[in-house]
């Protein structure tokens, strides 16, 4: 039986259908979770998809975090449940404090939609274990106006010490992007951070869109490994196994 993976829909979510499609392609049974519901319907993992929840009015993610469903997601995460936030979903879980850091406006102060390369820092997580190798460049789109990952030096040091950086922006050859490398790190994220993972290792967020790069026909299927990792991990969680594959860094 396919594992049930929830996809939260806020008013203004607009990647929910894409995420449902990608999960379906990866063999999961996607379950739509409406923002007003207080329960997660027994899903084994939750994805918060991209979009403009509540129009991103005021600040991206800041209103959505107060939705009833976010209380359930927070409790689920505190209980060790798997949560992945993509783009606006990352902004929501950062606002909710489920992962460290903040996402500021892009350095150019403009929305940016283009392909980037990211590389996983670690493979021993529920979100990356199915990737072929750490450090390998994965091509997928970004599409956001507020994706500049920010924290003060101490917080970033702490994040790195705790191995909390999950993805970094890299160039096509896999070299880590400089903060001011507008080609490889277009939003100007500090330390080229594209995605982070919670200290406990069960909540992760990233700005790029793996669900838009999960089929070869779309020009890249590099994102499929991230989706597949999540679905495999969710299946293990549903079977009562530890979802975190302990493996090579």
């Amino acid at each position, binding site marked *: 039986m396919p594992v049930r993976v929830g996809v939260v829909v806020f008013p203004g979510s607009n990647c929910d259908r894409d995420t449902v499609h990608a999960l379906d392609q990866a063999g999961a049974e996607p379950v739509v979770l409406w923002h007003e519901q207080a329960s997660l319907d027994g899903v084994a993992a939750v994805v918060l998809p991209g979009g403009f929840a509540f129009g991103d009015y005021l600040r991206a993610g800041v209103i959505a975090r107060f939705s009833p469903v976010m209380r359930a997601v927070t409790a689920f995460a505190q209980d060790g449940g798997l949560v992945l936030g993509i783009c606006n979903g990352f902004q929501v879980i950062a606002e909710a404090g489920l992962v460290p850091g903040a996402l500021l406006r892009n350095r150019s102060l*403009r929305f940016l*939609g283009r392909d980037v390369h990211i590389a996983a820092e670690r493979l021993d997580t529920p979100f990356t274990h199915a990737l072929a190798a750490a450090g390998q460049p994965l091509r997928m789109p970004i599409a956001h106006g507020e994706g500049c990952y920010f924290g003060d030096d101490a917080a970033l040091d702490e994040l790195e010490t705790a191995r909390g950086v999950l993805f970094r922006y890299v160039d096509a050859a896999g070299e880590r992007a400089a903060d001011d490398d507008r080609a490889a790190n277009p939003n100007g994220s500090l330390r080229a951070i594209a995605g982070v993972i919670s200290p406990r290792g069960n909540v992760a967020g990233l700005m790029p869109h793996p669900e838009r790069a999960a089929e070869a026909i779309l020009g890249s299927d590099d994102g499929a490994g991230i989706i597949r990792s999540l679905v495999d991990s969710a299946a293990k969680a549903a079977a009562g196994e530890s979802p975190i594959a302990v493996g090579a860094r």
Partner: protein
Amino acid sequence: MTLAERPVEPLHRRLGVTDDELVAIRERLGGREPNDLELAMFSVMWSEHCSYKSSKPLLRTLPTAGEGVVAGPGENAGVISIGDGLAVAFKIESHNHPSAVEPYQGAATGVGGILRDIFTMGARPIAVLDALRFGDPADARTRHLVDGVVRGVGGYGNCVGVPTVGGELVFDPSYQGNPLVNVMAIGLMEERRLTLAVAPGPGNLVVLFGSTTGRDGIGGASVLASATFTDDDPSKRPSVQVGDPFAEKLLIEASLELIERGLVEGLQDLGAGGITCATSETADRAGTGILVDLDAIPRREPDMEPFEVMISESQERMCATVRPDRWDAVREVCERWGLPVAVIGTVTADGDIAITSGGVEIARMPASALTSDAIVHERVGTAPTHRRAAPAPGAAEEPVDRLPERGMDPGAVLLGLLGSANLASRRAVFEQYDSTVGADTVAGPGHGAAVLRVKGTTKALVATTDGNQAVGMLDPYLGAALSVAEATRNVSITGARPLGITNCLNYGDPTRPEAFWQLQEGVRGLGDACRALGLPVTGGNVSLFNEAPTGSIAPTPEIGVVGLLEDIATLVGPAFAADGDTILLLGETTQGLAGSAYAALAGVAAEDGPPALDLGREAALQACIREAIARGLVASAQDVSGGGLAVALAECSIWSGLGATVRIGVADSPAVELFGESPSRIVVSASPRHVPALQLLARQHGLPVATIGVVGGDRLVIELAGAGATGAAESRGSRVADALEAAVADLAHAWDHGLPRALGWEGLA
């Protein structure tokens, strides 16, 4: 002059209604005088924008029948079947004048309006293309407009989650005072969900849902869209609507749910003319009337006058016809999506739009008088005396020395063209758009037509917009026909079959005979081209009065095309594919540099004209390339258009990183061979083993075909040979008469940096 000193005009004139039109309104009211509310309603509905009163007689001449057409002109969008029970809805519309006044909101609400036309039909919007035209890119006001319009298109489209996958950005001095913002939207639907904008069944409820009604956009159709700009008039600013993409996103989801669950009998979006337009059009189409309870309309501000409520163009509103037993379900859906919803009237059998407030009837008029029976003007068109005729088909071409470039390095010309504001990469603009949301974008903006896969099938939709204003300025008939030819060719070179045409006709003041003649000629060219290519026109929009104190815009027929590729595995792109592939030119180069990008850069001889178009040849060419692609003979296919053959080859190289060595014969002018924009030509690359089959196929279609070179290396080399070569390179010691040679990296650099440089955007990422 202060307001008090202004001579007081009668109300009808202040509302843009002429004295003749007032007489016609009285006739439709049985001889009585309209009251102020009725007059206001007539003024918006009889505006050019809503009534098409000048263009209707011309539009009737366009072909509208075609294979698979499910809904054509007159509906909110054209709908064409693509098989498997699916259909595609598409339409293009202008938002020129609002964008000139307030570029961000003008463009944003342009996107919002065209999206509503799509989901009103029951289709989920899957793509937007924006065709933008501005004046001099170095001018500060142009830069302000470009920045605002681009942010507006992105700000709205990105938020609603519909990818912006293509379009155009053209700079021409004629748009200096009057930019064009034309937006095309495409939707995908199950054919059985087709929903029409009708109000059937007396006794049914008329339900308004979405945003509340405010004072924004009062008289947008009559004040903004249907008058020329006397100046940058701040008094028109309140007429610009304000968009809320978040509300639109909710409106999309709620509307599609209502349709999917079969809860509505008819659905109409509110655009120009607001509630007046939505009620009168749906009633008139159904042969019914509507009794509107003005007091039931949810407002966003107090003390609104009845006429303000009735003609407000507040955005993000929909009007549904609902059976009384389904009202509770409709209300539940709207409330779940957080949308205000109210019953604002009932369908009647009397054919009238009647309005009550406080239990008193305050207006009544036949629905047809506002819409199908609105006034039609037979305008007069007169060709200008300075008109330059295109060469008659088959006329002998007089050999003229058209060599302003003699002694000029053709490589430098090519770099100049690639880096020019109109031909350089549009990346700096389209990167501000989300082009991949929806996870269907196979080919996004930047390299020819957009390609979207259709999930659950092997099919893909291919879409493009094109408009040729430069030739249109010289010959509006030819400009329109060339626009259709180029747009459809761009679809055919992917292997897709064009399904139909939508058009946005941007012209000047129709009361000026020369401007009206341009519109007449444009429609004639559009019709002839569509008939020759066997394509229906399924809808569109007419934008007139595009004039500023600096003059009228160039006639701009913007053509949107959607094509169907049955098997996405056969898709062919424009970039070269592999070293060693043979390069062929399908079709042949003909005379005429006027109206080309080269002419804009280098000038042309005074007696030169634009290139001729042979529509039969064009149809054969497109059929040939589609067949060649379906048979797997083609590795890449690129249309020859702006900048001519040299730019087409350069783009094939830049986009692939593969060089090429090409040798072309010159009949009498290297400029024509390299940079001429004669139509009906395609650069094809193919594996050498497929070349004989391609040549045979071309002959079967009656088309000239020449093997012109080979893909490979990291340089683009174009050798010119023949009687017409200038000898310039020979005198420099080259072994050929002329040669153009450049590193692909240099071509790419010129192409990449041209637009940011032109707009002063170098500092942006």
